[in-house]
């Protein structure tokens, strides 16, 4: 990479960029990691309702230390608050909400996204890792929109946007958009379409780091 290479976005910048695109009034589930940061960047002008798999709708910001409610955690097992209008329910109802297509959006992390929308984000396939899946497969299969937020490449420079996933799949053909540290990419029936490059990045630079054909919007 040349010295003039523009900087990729930070985790916070990726989350903020994604948050811009969430419309007022959407019901959204945020996965663990960078997706969780998204809630910090939804503007006060929008009412976005966050769902947590363990049975909450209307999740608010983390409490300060003096106002922790010990009976209130999110799916990431962190203390949270509830906004006025929140509701609680059991795990079957919570996943009925997910599986039944009632969530407008699930924001998930990813190991790989394929140009047909396949998602791999739960297992690297290593046998001894102690696998865990949580709600990833349900969210991947159930939400109306699945947006993945992840680095564009691995630390080794290998693209995480691919023609075909090599890691075990989470869900088939469900990803509709990918927010990376260098681009926003739509997943269409024709494949990956560059919706927006990060500031300073060109189509060619993004294509060079993408493991599948990139179309212009």
């Amino acid at each position: 990479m040349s010295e003039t290479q523009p900087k990729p976005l930070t985790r916070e910048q990726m989350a903020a960029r994604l948050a811009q695109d969430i419309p007022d009034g959407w019901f959204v589930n945020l996965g663990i990691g960078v997706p969780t940061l998204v809630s910090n960047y939804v503007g006060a002008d929008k009412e976005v309702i966050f769902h947590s798999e363990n049975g909450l709708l209307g999740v608010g910001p983390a409490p300060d230390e003096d106002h922790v409610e010990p009976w209130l955690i999110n799916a990431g097992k962190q203390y949270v608050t509830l906004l006025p209008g929140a509701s609680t329910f059991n795990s079957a109802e919570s996943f009925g909400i997910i599986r039944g297509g009632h969530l407008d959006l699930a924001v998930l992390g990813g190991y790989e996204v394929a140009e047909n929308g396949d998602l791999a984000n739960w297992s690297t396939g290593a046998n001894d890792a102690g696998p865990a899946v949580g709600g990833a497969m349900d969210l991947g299969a159930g939400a109306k929109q699945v947006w993945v937020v992840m680095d564009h490449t691995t630390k080794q420079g290998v693209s995480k946007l691919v023609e075909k996933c090599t890691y075990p799949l989470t869900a088939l053909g469900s990803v509709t958009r990918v927010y990376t540290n260098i681009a926003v990419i739509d997943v269409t029936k024709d494949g990956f379409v560059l919706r927006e490059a990060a500031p300073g990045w060109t189509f060619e630079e993004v294509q060079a780091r993408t493991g599948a054909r990139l179309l212009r919007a």
Partner: protein
Amino acid sequence: MINKFVPDMETALAGLNDGATILMGGFGSVGQPVQLVDHIADMGLKNLTLIANNAGAAFGGMTKLLQTGAIGKVVCSYPRSSNSTVFIDLYREGKIQLELVPQGTLAERIRAASAGIPAFFTPTGAGTQLGAGKETREINGRLCVLETAIHADFAVLEAWEADRWGNLTYKLSGQNFNPIMAGAAAVTVVQTQHVRELGEIHPDAVKTPGIYVDRVIHVPYGDPTL
């Protein structure tokens, strides 16, 4: 900002067209969206499919709705009524189709639609006329039939309380089919006895989270009558 309250019946039922399938809450007279049904009867629609537990009763505009000829088909468990022969008469005259479904299977098929379960096996109805023609399988030594989810275009429901996010509560036996129909239709419309501010309904008291609800109209009509 989210505000699911609508000002009038026209807005509440906008987009309901000829040929639509409609889920209607209520068991007997309790929890039935009386005024919504009444308005549907006035819309002059044709060839509707009505999915509800009871279809033959004389209360809540149902008789009027049936008499207008708007309903081409009824899916229900119990169309008979001691106080109305309207449905039976139309059925005998061949003017209305009937799909009879065991009540628990009806409830589970509707709940399945809301919960994203496309089909399930149940022992109910296996080996009977109402299971005839359905795929069967013996599971754990019991004959079961495969039943499919019932999706609809509209769900019309009655709640006891609602807030602007669409969170709902119900009163006593007013619950019945209402919570499971919320979310089983493309558009879920609720008439509510009481309007609450956001946060007035405790999170643990919400029976239907607002995510299932599209439109709410305030209809404080008071107590149902048998």
